[in-house]
């Protein structure tokens, strides 16, 4: 038995060491952990909070805002999580003046599955247990929550030939140009030809459900005298052209209803002519140059609200 255990230990040791290294890296140097740290340390000073999905995550670099701000939007973040974040933290954010919601069309149709790995990330970052088992060990480990994603990040980190990401103190990746458009060398013809829509726009039940959740989130802000801004970030025309007309209308009607009900301003940049090919890293996400332009624009809008 002793010999067996020795051999087993010898076999498992490299795996354990590697696991610890990757976990340590993820806990300290990824956009997730840096955002978490910034949010934890500056919660009381934050004046503007940005919520939403990867569109907002990529579109707002808080560095270019005049006020203290945090961008806690993440890829695939459902409105329920936006609402849960507000419920959990709004009372701890003494200086919070404005909350900016991402109202991109696909958000209202997205279904958050209980087996989606993001659930464990929210549990890990904010102790929000949305559709996850609160006792799951995955809530405490980046690697176990999504091995493929976090090992690929770590491999990029140790691979001398891979691009190195620069993440600022807000958790924003300030050189995140590496995506479809760069691969296609910003060739608009190739970009137009090779577009594939990744989002789905069906499910009226989800639309209605998400509308109610957004209403609850706005109501919570209003009750705390926090201003609300609804924003659709810019999209490249390939994306816009492929969002079904029916979905565009449904979401536009939904946003109009909410605007009217709560008297909140809405700014739609989805087809803005101020953003061109060079401002995007792919069809639906701004690159850091585009984000700078957009953040400055949103900053002026927030200041106008005052």
């Amino acid at each position, binding site marked *: 038995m002793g010999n067996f255990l020795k051999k087993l230990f010898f076999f498992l040791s490299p795996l354990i060491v590697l696991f610890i290294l990757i976990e340590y890296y993820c806990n300290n140097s990824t956009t997730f952990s840096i955002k978490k740290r910034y949010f934890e340390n500056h919660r009381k000073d934050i004046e503007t909070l940005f919520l939403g999905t990867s569109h907002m995550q990529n579109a707002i670099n808080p560095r270019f805002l005049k006020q203290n701000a945090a961008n806690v939007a993440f890829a695939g973040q459902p409105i329920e999580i936006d609402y849960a974040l507000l419920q959990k933290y709004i009372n701890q954010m003494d200086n919070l003046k404005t909350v900016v919601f991402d109202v991109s069309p696909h958000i209202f149709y997205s279904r958050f599955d209980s087996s989606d790995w993001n659930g464990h990330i929210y549990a890990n970052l904010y102790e929000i247990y949305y559709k996850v088992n609160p006792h799951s*060990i995955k809530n405490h480990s980046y690697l176990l929550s999504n091995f493929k994603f976090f090992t690929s990040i770590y491999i990029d980190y140790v691979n001398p030939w891979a691009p190195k990401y620069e993440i600022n103190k807000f958790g924003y990746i300030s050189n995140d140009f590496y995506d479809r458009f760069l691969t296609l060398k910003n060739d608009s013809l190739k970009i137009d030809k090779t577009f594939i829509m990744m989002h789905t726009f069906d499910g009226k039940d989800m639309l209605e459900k998400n509308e109610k959740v957004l209403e609850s989130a706005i109501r919570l802000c209003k009750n705390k005298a926090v201003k609300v801004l609804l924003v659709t970030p810019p999209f490249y025309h390939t994306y816009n052209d492929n969002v079904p007309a029916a979905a565009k209308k449904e979401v536009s009607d939904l946003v109009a209803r909410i605007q009217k009900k709560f008297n909140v301003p809405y700014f739609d940049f989805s087809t803005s002519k101020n953003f061109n090919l060079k401002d995007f890293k792919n069809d639906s996400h701004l690159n850091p140059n585009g984000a700078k332009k957009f953040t400055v624009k949103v900053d002026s809008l927030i200041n106008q609200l005052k």
Partner: protein
Amino acid sequence: MLFNTINFAIFLPIVFVCYWFITNRSLKLQNLMLLGASYFFYACWDWRFLFLLAFSTFLDYFTGLKMSEAKHNVIVKKFWFWLSIIINLGFLGVFKYYNFFVSSFAEMLNNFGFSTNPLLLKIILPVGISFYTFHGLSYVVDIYKNRIEAEKSLVDYSLFVSFFPLLVAGPIERATHLLPQIKNKRTFDPNKAVDGLRQILWGLFKKVVIADQCATYVNTIFNGSDYSGSTLVLGAFLFALQIYGDFSGYSDIALGVARIFGIELLRNFAFPYFSRDIAEFWRRWHISLSTWFRDYLYIPLGGSKGGMGMKIRNTFIIFIVSGFWHGANWTFIIWGALNALYIMPSIIFETNRKNLDIVAEGKWLPSFKEFISMLLTFSLATFAWIFFRASSVSAAFKYIGGIFSKSLLSIPSILPGRLLGLILIFIIVEWIGRENQFAIQKIINKWKWPFRYALYYLIIYAVFYFSGKEQQFIYFQF
């Protein structure tokens, strides 16, 4: 708790330590600990059904003792025997088949012009009920037939029924095979433990890397509409790989885990897709269920003693019952019947025991004839799997209709290149290792340890890399 989860990866070492280090001085304590671990394992799925499991176990234990006591009193013995059979099958009937029978009956009445409103119940199927019921049934039948003595220790008997590696999806064990192992002191054998770990690793690879990756495409193709004939063929091919990877992967993990605890379970798969005819396929696929039906249904029905007519009838019966065992749906019944039809020529011409050896044993490649036979057998099995996978009989026929269209010769609209590459590697490894219990059992033994370890690390990496969403095992629903 699923085998392919982190929770199980924590659970297993804890049980291992308790088993070999804390309770190892007393066999009774060791069995009690394993029983507790097994009940905990089951409770992680749904603790409420523990009572059903405990009741079913106690029923068979008690009736077993009563039958033993009434050895010479045939009437009393029969009473206890039938009591156990009726209650066991009653549970299975209520939980698994109630809605099927009620809705089928109502449909039949509707066809005769009677309007009915059947009372369907929202019944959750207790995981593993088909498996542990069959454990109990074989035990009771064996006592009734005087093949074994009733087990006196409730703990040992309970462990036989609910030993966690086999509790939810088999292999379906026999009291004659497993109970003696439970009653005898186990000693730790490092070679067996290493072998067990290797089998677990290969099982995980089959499940996570092959079956779960196939599942994504299979679900898309089977749930979609208007796919070309060639895409539908690809869907059926991938499902054949999925169900094999899923179920044989589960069985490998179960056997590997049991081996770590010094217990040998019945082998459940023996490279069935390398079979040269359907009879051989069924000797190699879900072996513990096939042999169960042979011993407890086919032979009691008369087997092949009553001439060709009885042989054909009994073959049809066991295949149809086997299909029905899988689930309360006509699709499974048709799947069973179709396999019975496939096997008929070999029954009639008495060639069903022609291929008892391993194909191309000791050779690198099969002969052309062997290759064609394997391809044909695989194609027949894959065709039958369409019924197994389809949501309804009409969906299965629509799927088959879609295959036999002009688009059969077109390029599939879904072509998962990376997955097909993985499948090719998988088939090659399985072929090379087909003379062993599982593919990687011995083929890498001669390698130097750095290469062997590198391969293990590669498999571990692949398992983690592909383990996105946790997928249930297909056979859990049975």
